[in-house]
């Protein structure tokens, strides 16, 4: 890992078109918070690492070849225990897609 020290309003450039700038520094020690501004092309994904790590972990846990779906799960697809109120317009549009 490349380690750089930046002050408020200083930046780091990655490649030709990614810039990370320190916009705000508040507090000190363990309580210190910094606000970063990131400029990157739209096709580059920028994420908080925790979200990325959580998705990787969920994918890895889910990645097993299941020969069959448990009956309860199939039954739920017929009568879902949905948390939101059904939106028939959305459902009809999505349901038509294969």
């Amino acid at each position, binding site marked *: 890992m490349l380690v750089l020290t930046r002050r408020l309003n200083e930046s780091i450039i990655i490649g030709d078109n990614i810039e990370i700038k320190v916009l705000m520094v508040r507090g000190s020690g363990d309580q210190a918070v910094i606000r970063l501004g990131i400029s990157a092309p739209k096709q580059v994904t920028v994420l908080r690492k925790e979200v990325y790590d959580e998705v990787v972990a*969920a*994918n890895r846990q*889910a990645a*097993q*070849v299941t020969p069959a*779906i*448990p009956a309860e799960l199939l039954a739920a697809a017929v009568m879902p225990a949905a*948390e939101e109120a059904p939106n028939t317009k959305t459902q009809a549009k999505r349901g038509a897609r*294969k």
Partner: protein
Amino acid sequence: MNETAATVSTADANVIEFESGLFGFPHLKLFIIGEVPGGGDIFKQLLSVEQPDVGFTLAMPNVFFPDYLPAVSEEDLKALEAGSLDDVVIMVIVTVPRAVKEATVNLRAPLLFNPYTRKARQVILADERYAVRQRLFKG
């Protein structure tokens, strides 16, 4: 070297190409869709051609969450060579633990498929309302 991978290519009409792989599996680019007994159009299997022990159970999210509407960007459409959102099928990965009541779907990182180009990608949404582990059954 996996013998299957040597004989399957994206020219095969059944093979779906994830140009960027999936998160945590960036090296796996070629998959096929498998049927699930009793799953109809709601549940499918996503099976790796390159690593046969890797597979995912997928579900059509709006069956369980009718208001689920992930934001799909221009960049996503371009990567899928899709003209519009109408060309895109959205599915989510299901995690089925031993206790079926604990089953979850990943609404935060859906899979986008273009059935016309057979291209697909997994995206992580900025929308914090959608959970990585969204329960299918009320706890």
